[in-house]
């Protein structure tokens, strides 16, 4: 009798837990993500999507002071970043050079964001 009760409780618990944990996360932008859109027109011309910089992902490995304010000024649109500079080892290219982090050869790892209206 007790064994049956325990089994029943476990079953119900299992169902409850599984319904909570299988909800799909449909969020595209995480809190702290920066969409880099100050060169929107140029990116559109080059037929690539907008760049998303995930702050929180980088924050696990680096403190803010590793990049700010020397590498990137803390102001939207104040950093004149382009792919040429990144290839030459400035801005993102300071780490993304194949030595510290992966080299900037995989467009679709950063150019991932489409504004909701244009999808």
């Amino acid at each position, binding site marked *: 009798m007790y064994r049956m009760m325990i089994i029943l409780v476990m079953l119900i618990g299992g169902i409850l837990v599984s319904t909570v944990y299988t909800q799909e996360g449909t969020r595209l932008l995480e809190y702290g993500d920066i969409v880099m859109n100050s060169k929107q027109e140029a990116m559109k011309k080059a037929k690539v999507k907008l760049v998303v910089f995930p702050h929180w992902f980088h924050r*696990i490995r680096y403190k803010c002071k590793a990049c700010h304010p020397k590498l990137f000024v803390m102001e939207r649109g104040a950093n004149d970043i382009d792919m040429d500079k990144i290839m030459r080892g400035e801005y993102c290219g300071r780490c993304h050079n194949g030595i510290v982090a992966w080299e900037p050869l995989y467009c679709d790892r950063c150019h991932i964001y489409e504004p909701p209206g244009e999808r």
Partner: protein
Amino acid sequence: MRRQVFMILLMGLLSLFMAHGALSLGKGRVDKKDIAEEIRKRIQAQLIRLGIPDPLSPPATRGFEDLPLALRYLPRDPYGYPDWTRAMEDGLLLPRDYIYGPEELGKERHYDKDVVIKVKDEVLGDVIFSHRKHNYWLSCDNCHPYPFKEKRGETKFTMYDNWKGKYCGLCHGKVAFMLRGIDNCLRCHTLRRN
């Protein structure tokens, strides 16, 4: 027979424990809700005038599966977002200060004194600004002299400025924890006055 008695006792204890938990939880919530209501009453007119969305409505609560894989196992705040300060204090994270070498930082100064920021409000306590917690992540020139002048009391700002994305709001609300929800209010406004 003995087993039955034991089970009944166990169930009774369990239910007592649960009831106690539920009661204390309820108490805490009511208390905080009252504070939130009181604050809302005071600031509502000004919020509408300045066009700031209601900061006392809590941010969307994040579940375990909601978060990206890399952030799931960090300590989390009441709304489910990663609590970076706790992660730092528990030693769960060992983020680097520099990319290649310590010479990048130049003359790094360490400052870990607390600053009390006086608040003109009777409901919320004064803010204890911990230089230690902020200096861990940021270097001095991130905040001084812009947006905060180094001399104490020289920079005057209001909470409305913060909600509009100036001063504290430059980071809090973008990468650091949001200035929304009563639980987040009480993370800074900690100092009780008599």
